[in-house]
């Protein structure tokens, strides 16, 4: 990490763990220092209730958007302390932002939720030694140090390929893991053989035709380890549509994990690093292909609005940030021609990543891409905009609700009869893959989960090769 940066708010000392900067002067907590009108915006009409998964699951107002907002407001009004129960409630919320899509009043729940979690961390009401270590390890150590993250990814890869994973599974060694971790072990994603830097050159230009746009690609951290093929496919479809693609090396985490988990200081520091690595003035667009990252990346302007050195650059960054589907639709991407011999027909359904549809309001464009694929028959699935239960690290912290959502989601997907499920976020991808695999009847093949852009890249490739994809 750039501990030399004069703006660094980050320290990797254990004493400073997960503690955000203290609340601004004149107030004794972050919710109080928030512009009151943001809290007041909720007029408790209840229109968001039926779309909130945790409310639908429990039927209790405390687990609803307006219930949570009323608790935040009670804290701002001095009617409630930041208690452990409040902290737990803030972490029971999925952060899926379905409520923001449903809310006619335009309540900025994302802001409220991040502020509330930051306050929970600042007050350490959920603090335990174990939680502190896990947070330090994840938020402060691994996800701030791209080289370390990739090194760990490499180790995991070795573990998986060397047969050690299989060995420890067959010998029952994994049973020695503590309960929750043992349950998760089969979900460990398969690490890619090559990460993005090994698949993508720093600058790539379209081989034919003129360059119409110049874009920077964000490779993400989990995406890079587990889905570097999605990054490669993103470059391919951009090239096929006249974009020159700049991909800076060894990119850091975008900070969304930190912002959603109440570590604002790290989130701000990571945003500055992104802005140091990519000059938004030098490109037409900055492309993200992971729903969760994009939703956070778009709000750098808000995150750094009070940083004199970075505010302006952050504002330009936010203006140029595009989700890949959004960008492709904006530049009128070329629909792939059906290759000679015709493409085999396949039913595909689309699962909307929460932070793509609710966080970024990108919903139509991925479907346009899917519909453009030769042979694809788009079948809508029920509750396509519902959270799948992945929600960052929610499936680790709240396995029950996550499992309930996963089962619900898998049921809707299976009901479509689709053989391909398209989705554009690594967390959703893994959650769906695991859920569909577990639910598949013995001997049957579960639907394949894939990023829409990978399908598009394949269709372009098939078209070029003149054979069915």
């Amino acid at each position, binding site marked *: 990490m750039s501990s030399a940066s004069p703006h660094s708010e980050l320290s990797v000392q254990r004493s400073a763990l997960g503690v955000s900067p203290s609340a601004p002067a004149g107030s004794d907590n972050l919710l109080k220092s928030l512009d009151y009108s943001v809290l*007041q915006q909720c*007029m408790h009409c209840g*229109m968001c209730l039926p779309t909130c998964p945790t409310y639908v699951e429990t039927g209790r107002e405390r687990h609803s958007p307006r219930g949570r907002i*009323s608790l935040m407001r009670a804290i701002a009004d001095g009617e409630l302390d930041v208690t452990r129960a409040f902290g737990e409630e803030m972490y029971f919320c999925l952060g899926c932002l379905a409520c923001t899509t449903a809310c*006619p009043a335009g309540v900025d729940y994302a802001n409220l939720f991040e502020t509330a979690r930051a306050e929970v961390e600042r007050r350490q009401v959920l603090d335990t030694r174990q939680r502190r270590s896990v947070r330090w390890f994840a938020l402060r150590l691994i996800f701030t140090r791209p080289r370390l993250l990739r090194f760990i990814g490499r180790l995991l890869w070795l573990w998986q390929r060397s047969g050690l994973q299989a060995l420890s599974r067959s010998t029952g060694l994994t049973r020695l893991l503590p309960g929750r971790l043992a349950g998760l072990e089969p979900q460990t994603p398969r690490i890619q053989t090559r990460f993005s830097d090994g698949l993508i050159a720093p600058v790539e230009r379209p081989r034919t035709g003129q360059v119409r746009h110049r874009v920077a690609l964000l490779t993400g951290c989990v995406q890079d380890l587990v889905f570097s093929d999605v990054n490669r496919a993103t470059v391919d479809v951009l090239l096929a549509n006249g974009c020159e693609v700049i991909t800076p090396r060894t990119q850091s985490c975008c900070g969304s994990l930190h912002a959603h988990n109440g570590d604002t200081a790290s989130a701000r520091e990571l945003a500055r690093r992104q802005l140091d690595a990519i000059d938004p003035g030098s490109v037409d667009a900055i492309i993200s292909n992971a729903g969760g990252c994009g939703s956070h990346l778009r709000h750098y302007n808000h995150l750094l609005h009070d940083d004199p050195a970075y505010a302006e650059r952050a504002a330009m960054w936010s203006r140029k940030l595009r989700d890949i589907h959004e960008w492709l639709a904006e530049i009128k991407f070329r629909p792939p021609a059906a290759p000679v011999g015709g493409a085999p027909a396949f039913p595909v359904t689309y699962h909307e990543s929460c932070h793509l549809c609710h966080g970024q309001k990108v919903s139509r464009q991925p479907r346009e891409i899917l519909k453009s694929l030769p042979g694809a028959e788009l079948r809508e699935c029920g509750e396509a905009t519902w959270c799948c239960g992945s929600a960052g690290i929610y499936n680790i912290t709240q396995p029950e609700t996550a499992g309930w959502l996963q089962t619900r989601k898998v049921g809707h997907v299976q009901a479509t009869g689709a053989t391909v499920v398209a989705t554009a976020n690594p967390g959703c991808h893994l959650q769906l893959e695991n859920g569909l695999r577990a639910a598949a009847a013995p001997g049957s093949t579960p639907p394949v989960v894939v990023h829409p852009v990978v399908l598009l890249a394949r269709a372009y490739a098939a078209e070029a090769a003149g054979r069915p994809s």
Partner: protein
Amino acid sequence: MSSSSSPSTPVPAPQPLPPAFVAALQTAFAAGSILTSREDLIPYGFDGTAALKQLPGVVVFPKDAASVSGVLKLARTHRVPVVTRGSGTGLSGGSVPVPGCVVLCLADMNRILELDAKNLTLSAEPGVITQRIYDAADAAGLFYPPDPGSMKISTIGGNVAENAGGLRGLKYGVTRNYVMGLEVVLADGSIVTLGNKCVKDVAGYNLRDLFIGSEGTLGVITRVLLRLLPKPGARQTLLATYASMDAAAETVSAIIAERIIPCTLEFLDQRTLRCVEAFAKVGLPTEAEALLLIETDGHPAAVADEASRIERICTQHQALAVRRAASAEEGVRLATARRSAFSALARLRPTTILEDATVPRSELAKMIRFINETAQKHRVEVATFGHFGDGNLHPTFLTDERNADEMHRVEAAMKEIFDYALSLGGTLTGEHGVGLAKKAYLPRQLGDATLSLLKTIKRSLDPDGLLNPGKIFD
């Protein structure tokens, strides 16, 4: 807007409940069905009404009428007030707790019990969401018309208790017109059944109607029997835009004068229209001063005929443009967008106070003009939308509850608007109920004799005054 509390007016401290009462409830209810912690109670301290907030003492979630009866008996023994609640979307404070009360939340009583296609009835527990009733009827080729703005989350029990209206009131009436029977738990815990599946029934007093719109002050509704209609064969939605509110109002009068009763005849002024469009993005023309959303339904031939006559009348009355929804789905999208109007207005100012003054249809244009003049006079912002076809207006004050001076002006304007509505032969509330929000104005509308009749009824059914006390009247 929201909870009441401007920082200057602290919430009244919760009154402690008798410990024996809480202990008895704790024995009767499983852990997840009784709430007592502060974090659990705060979210039950309000409903959809602006600026009203009160922490309850305890919240319980009964599963059946017997359990409701048990709570009422206990409450009577310990003299604890009882406030019944569904999804808490009411707009007059009907389900806002009173100090030291038990909130009886019926959200867990959420089963549809029977759909009787032979008798065209549906029987349900009170916690069923209105939209589910509509959908269940629709799936059977039937139709449940009442469609309050919050129907995707409001409960049927709440609809009956408030006698909720909706967008289809003009042609189809309100919730009352669809209630054939009720099961009610009385203040002493006895359970009565009022009404049945017979279309005709004159045995004894019609007490069923007494409970419809009683706002939880006379008993607790634990089951409803609803009347369904055959599903209309066709629907057509039209949008007409106007450069002036008067032209829109005249169009409405002309439609009615031509003996057309559309199913929906909704009006939105420019402010409302812009907020709704900002949220719903359904392509409303935001430059227009006024907009009419009209829907006709029925036999396909009749719908086609009515739609073209309505189109002609709109054009004759200076409509800037008349557009037909291209499909049934677009019609549904437009109606859904309209239902968001009240919440969407909250985009403009911190506090949104919704009123419900209703006048005979012939007086609509006058009423609207008066609302705008009054708002100007008191320097307050008002947006108006509503059900033009049935004279039910929703002038909505856009203000800030923390600005005391502005709130005074809002109150003054509101009072003048109520007085004027009454002088035109209107009512304080067309569909939201009196609750807490309008009870100060009720005596003026009802007069002494009527009010004391209401009180006599209340006393005879709830002698201890424990059912939703302080609502409608003191």
